């Protein structure tokens, strides 16, 4: 009987020359600190089957794969070049951007989020930026509620999303380890200036009768808008009553029809598109999976709303060899940013798959990884690091701030085991929050191997991070901010809302 497992039969370890290790000509100081690794055979050659018929798609795919083989085929995985990436990401914050970046003028909060979150993943203390993040974002709050992409611009849900994520990240960093009263003070300075009431009213204006959301008033409808809106609502601590709305004012429940809308975005391919009938796409898949997991636990979220098996099949087909990275759509090229958009989906679908398996018996079953962490790590370290800092789509393409954040987030997804734990659900924060399920995600450095149907076997996956100096920070799998930041923020809202209630009562008296 042939066995499924004995793969990755690599060739004999070959000792790469320095030139091979450094296609970009840079020299990594600790290049030789690790033992050489056998390069799995799948990274050394083109796929076993190539059709004779050539089209534009196959030509692009072939030339990309050939180009990438030169980079991924390295016995010594290059280390994460932390220092130069940090420098690349600090530069726009400290020095500002040249006029050539004017195309990002309607995405100012995105710029802050990408750089600051990426620095945080790299282990930098971004707390020092908190006060300047606050003063940079205040002028973006629109007088009628919500956030614009810049001062004086119309409110846009992605601007609100990126603003809140940035604030959550820097306030978490600066308040860690502080006594409670000082911590509350940090959060007050960071968040109390946001007009939550007007923001909520504005979000009501972009909600559509079909359960979807528009990105702004008069703007386009897609699942990105829905995901961003839910994240903002979850992180700003709105409770059930606020979201239900006031029928006497003609307000409808804000969350009604939302899950149904997301559900309708699963396509004939099994993946998920920007809106119903649109082509399945990794970026939108992440938005929908994460959004559904904000509304319920992963098993209910993904298996009740979606055809989970077809979703997993489509997600799995996004990972290519020899490249090791993910593509965003069928018959498209790999791109480092899908390390998050597709890579980030895995912890969510695995949590659902595990819950389903456990439901069949009484033992703790783990289906193990449904993807290749090692292949993604190889793609990221060998192909996505720009020679002068920053991370990128693929070799030959200039790094940017967007890719830096999403490649690093994907690296965090590959290095850590993120799992859903509702065993202490009752004692966790905000048991009554509509988004309580989002606060039950945990991380571990130990990635479990699959166990048998009876829960036996298992053990931990070895060699994901051979050198701890390459390990990056842990991130919340739905919010994409440091794991733990969501809980700190939530406990501040609880305190803040209690105080506001007390104030309201004392005013009434």
């Amino acid at each position, binding site marked *: 009987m042939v066995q*499924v*497992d004995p793969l990755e039969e690599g060739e004999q370890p070959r000792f790469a020359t320095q030139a091979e290790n450094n296609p970009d000509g840079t020299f990594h100081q600790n290049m030789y600190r690790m033992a050489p690794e056998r390069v799995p055979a799948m990274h050394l050659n083109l796929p076993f089957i190539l059709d004779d018929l050539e089209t534009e798609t196959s030509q692009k795919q072939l030339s990309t794969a050939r180009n990438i083989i030169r980079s991924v085929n390295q016995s010594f995985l290059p280390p994460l070049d932390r220092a130069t990436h940090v420098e690349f990401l600090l530069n726009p914050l400290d020095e500002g951007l040249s006029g050539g970046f004017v195309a990002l003028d309607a995405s100012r909060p995105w710029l802050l989020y990408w750089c600051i979150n990426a620095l945080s993943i790299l282990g930098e203390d971004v707390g020092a930026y908190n006060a300047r993040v606050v003063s940079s974002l205040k002028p973006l709050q629109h007088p009628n509620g919500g956030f614009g992409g810049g001062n004086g611009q119309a409110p846009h849900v992605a601007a609100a999303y990126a603003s809140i994520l940035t604030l959550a990240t820097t306030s978490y960093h600066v308040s860690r380890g502080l006594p409670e009263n000082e911590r509350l003070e940090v959060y007050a300075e960071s968040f109390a200036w946001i007009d939550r009431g007007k923001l909520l009213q504005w979000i009501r204006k972009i909600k559509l009768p079909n359960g979807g959301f528009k990105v702004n008033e008069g703007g386009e409808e897609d699942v990105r808008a829905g995901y961003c809106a839910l994240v903002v609502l979850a992180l700003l601590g709105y409770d059930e009553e606020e979201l239900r709305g006031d029928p006497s004012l003609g307000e409808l429940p804000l969350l009604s029809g939302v899950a149904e809308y997301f559900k309708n975005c699963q396509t004939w391919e099994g993946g998920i598109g920007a809106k119903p009938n649109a082509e399945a796409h990794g970026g939108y898949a992440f938005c929908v999976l994460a959004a559904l997991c904000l509304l319920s636990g992963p098993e209910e979220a993904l298996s009740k709303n979606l055809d989970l098996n077809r979703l997993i099949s489509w997600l799995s087909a996004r990972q290519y060899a020899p490249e090791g990275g993910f593509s965003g759509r*069928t018959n498209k090229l790999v791109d480092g940013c899908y390390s998050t958009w597709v890579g980030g989906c895995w912890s969510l679908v695995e949590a659902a798959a595990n819950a389903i398996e456990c439901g069949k018996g009484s033992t703790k079953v783990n289906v193990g990884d449904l993807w290749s962490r090692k292949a993604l790590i190889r793609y990221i370290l060998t192909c996505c690091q720009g020679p002068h800092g920053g991370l990128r789509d693929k070799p030959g393409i200039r790094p940017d701030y967007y890719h830096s954040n999403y490649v690093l987030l994907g690296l965090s997804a590959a290095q850590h085991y993120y799992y859903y734990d509702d065993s202490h659900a009752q004692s966790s924060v905000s048991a009554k929050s509509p988004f309580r399920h989002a606060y039950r995600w945990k991380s571990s450095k130990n990635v479990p191997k*699959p166990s048998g149907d009876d829960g036996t076997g298992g053990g931990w996956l070895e060699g994901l991070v051979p050198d701890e100096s390459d390990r990056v920070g842990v991130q919340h799998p739905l919010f994409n901010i440091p794991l733990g930041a969501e809980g700190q923020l939530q406990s501040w809202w609880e305190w803040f809302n209690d105080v506001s209630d007390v104030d309201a009562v004392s005013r009434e008296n």
Partner: protein
Amino acid sequence: MASYDSDEEVDYATDPAWAHITPLPQDDGENPLAQIAYHPEYVLAMSYLRGVMAVNYHSAQVLKLTADIISMNAAHYTVWGYRFKTLMALEASNSFEDGKTNWSWRKELDWVQSIAKQYEKNYQIWHHRQLIIDHLNDPTGERERTNEMFASDSKNYHVWTYRQWLVKKFNLFDKEELDTMELLLKEDVRNNSAWNHRYFITLGSLGTDSPADGVIDREIEFAKVAISSAPQNPSPWNYLKAVLRKGNVDLVSLKEFCEQFAPIYSEDEIRSSHALDTLSEIYNAAGDFGKAEQALVLLAAKFDPVRKNYWRYRKRLLGANENVPTASEKTPVVHATA
């Protein structure tokens, strides 16, 4: 006055036509992070836009101003939104008809198309176009415009989203649409966006309705021909399976078709990993777990090794669907170690 689509520069600060607008500076707050060192022209145009927006001023001049800003930053959603409001205000005041403006919806659409060709990855341009066509309620020429875009990038997500909206809005589920997809797939049978659109126009738009007679058979045949031309192309395989599901046709009916591309006991003759994947499902449904597992083993070991863990998971699920035969009927399975 300059025409609204010309590159002729307007100096907003000195042009008397703009004297009635008070420019408003940008407030970036105290010690802002990641400030952009704007070119002076951008700063000036943006201060006039803020001035214009503050007094809700809509005139033909605003078309020039917004076009100027869009030429410097095509992703400026606020500017696009304000431009559309201005166009609507001009129409409401009959300014297009009486020749005062030298502008029209047609000119606007031509201008938008020229911008679209410069900035292919842009949400706003296609949304603006959608707003206009929605308002005019006339799709004439729009399919041709999107076809022009497909000539340079046949997988442009924004253009495809717009095309879908167009088809749905104006009920263009017709032969022309089907022929265009056939043409695009003839050019590149791996164009998954074209496959997606084909599914939308043939089956996806039906909702819970049943397809018309012959549609399922026609689409099965279309996918099979495409597969035969390049069996390792995932798009028509996914399409074929989706058509079967929609038509309630048993997947097992594909057994012989798949086996010609992937005889599982003649490894050297296997020409499609997707045939192996499908065969594993078919053998599983038929209760032939040994063969189902063999297909997965071949995928993991040789034909799609990066997905090894997924194939292992699929092995775990073998026999798990509702058509599972009773234990006594099961082919004995030797469990491989995971």
